[in-house]
């Protein structure tokens, strides 16, 4: 919990220095190379680019504390406002991807573990490692080519109702699905190998109870962790998937910000993104703790 404060301080410092060191002059790219010097000077004062770096950082922090992430250099709209507007879209996409990845991934993992070393296991294992290896921007394009351009089943890009959501969510879910199936398989195999399962069987406890009470409960712990930690990969993947499918979320927003060197947008997105990421990790940690009393904070190794 205490890690959050230095983390956020570190992030703001980092995003600020990153943005300051960016090549190119935001004022010049905003007004164009041929603008009059007086105009350039005026805008420089307006956005505070004439003060020194330390003052700029303090000003930035003070604004952040008041919940103001500044205004976009281009649209002059409040960054926080736009982020809050777009965040639900990214969340929708990530949740939809999770809805596909979590049930399928864990189911495949369990099947694979129970059918260890059979053809089914090999096929599932091969598919899950492939899912991990295929870049989302390529699988996304292939899905788009097949389902929207050939079969015309789904719109190729844009945001809106459910039909727009299917392809990006499917694309985003593939690597997570692979990762989840793999981790579930290893975990279930590990638990099945534990002495207490043998003991339970020797004690004549019904198989159904062994599976539901002991195997599932013990296997669930690492699986929940992976599901939570994977949220970071959804954020990563969202940048690419949203860019490809024109989904109006944070990922596309930050990409546009980077292309236009729109510092407040980049910094706002990175700060909010990291905050969400860390918050989710903490929730996962707490869940982990309540699921497994053996685990104490700080003792787990990733």
């Amino acid at each position, binding site marked *: 919990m205490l890690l959050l404060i230095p983390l956020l301080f570190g992030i703001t410092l980092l995003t600020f220095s990153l943005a300051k060191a960016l090549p190119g002059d935001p004022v010049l790219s905003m007004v164009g190379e041929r603008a009059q010097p007086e105009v350039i000077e005026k805008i420089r004062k307006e956005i505070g680019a004439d003060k020194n770096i330390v003052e700029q950082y303090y000003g930035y922090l003070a604004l952040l504390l008041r919940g103001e992430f500044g205004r976009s250099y281009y649209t002059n709209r409040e960054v926080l406002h736009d982020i809050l507007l777009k965040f639900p879209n990214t969340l929708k996409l990530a949740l939809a991807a999770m809805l596909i990845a979590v049930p399928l991934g864990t189911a495949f993992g369990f099947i694979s573990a129970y059918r260890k070393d059979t053809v089914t296991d090999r096929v599932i294992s091969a598919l899950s490692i492939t899912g*991990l290896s295929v870049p989302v921007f390529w699988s996304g394009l292939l899905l788009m080519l097949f389902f929207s351009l050939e079969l015309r089943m789904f719109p190729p890009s844009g945001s809106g109702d459910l039909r727009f959501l299917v392809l990006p969510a499917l694309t985003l879910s593939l690597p997570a699905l692979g990762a989840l199936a793999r981790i579930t398989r290893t975990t279930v195999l590990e638990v099945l190998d534990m002495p207490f399962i043998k003991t339970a069987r020797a004690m004549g406890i019904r198989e159904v109870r062994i599976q539901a009470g002991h195997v599932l409960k013990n296997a669930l712990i690492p699986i929940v962790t992976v599901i939570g930690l994977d949220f970071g990969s959804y954020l990563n993947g969202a*940048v690419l998937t949203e860019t490809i499918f024109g989904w109006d979320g944070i990922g596309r927003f930050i990409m546009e910000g980077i292309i236009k060197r729109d510092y407040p947008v980049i910094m706002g997105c990175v700060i909010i993104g990291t905050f969400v990421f860390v918050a989710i990790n903490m929730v996962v940690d707490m869940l982990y703790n309540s699921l497994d009393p053996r685990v104490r904070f700080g003792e787990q190794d990733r």
Partner: protein
Amino acid sequence: MNRTGKAALLIILLIAVMSFTASFMPWCNPGSINLDRIKEAPSFDHPLGTDTKGRDILSRILYGGRVSISIAVSAALLSTMIGLVFGLCSGYFGGKVDALLMAFADLVLSFPTLLLAIAISVLFPPGIYTVVIAIVAVGWASFARIIRGQVLSLKEANYIEAAKAMGCSTGRIIHRHLMPQCIPVVLVVMGMKIGGYILVEASLSFLGLGAQPPMPTWGSMISAHRAYLTSAPWMVVAPGFMIALTALCFNLLGDSLRDRYGLKIKG
């Protein structure tokens, strides 16, 4: 190593050898523009077709492979070196050093990888070195964590006690007794990470933050030809297939190395 691992290694070597010898092949001209023969489907002259400027896609893929593999492998080597220093110190000295170093590693690990890589790629002028820096900036931390775990389990071993009793210096114990024992783990983790690094490199160059034109990369080949997905799908399919194949082979190799050394590392 099992059969899958050997096959994966063979394919990796094949891709690497073909990519790195491509500049000696007379037919390999990634930069030669021929505007009379643009967007040609695969044929005998151009096994993978030509792109929007009439350049041979096979040649460009081989040159792109050189970039991808060099970046991923050097990023893995650099991450390993930094991870070794952090992991060995953290694991061996324990206490405050450990707490401080691992807090730092956790801080880095709690960043969404691609977001941080994007931020770094924007900080420095885009290019090969920037991509390597971006990957290493995040990558070293997971090496450090795993190596620390390995050291923790090793440092209580009898032969370390014996070495201490014989008066070995701390430096010698770390260098001669602990580090060699970490090599298998490092190999396994490298195998498992390189596949991911290939994907990060491809993603960054897809976003235009990788090696800059005219140098061909797999990621930039896909982003440049996205618009022709229906009219000339081979321009997008071929480079993407190479990214997936290379990443897959490295992942399979990592898995099989892990099984070979009987290590339990999840990923």
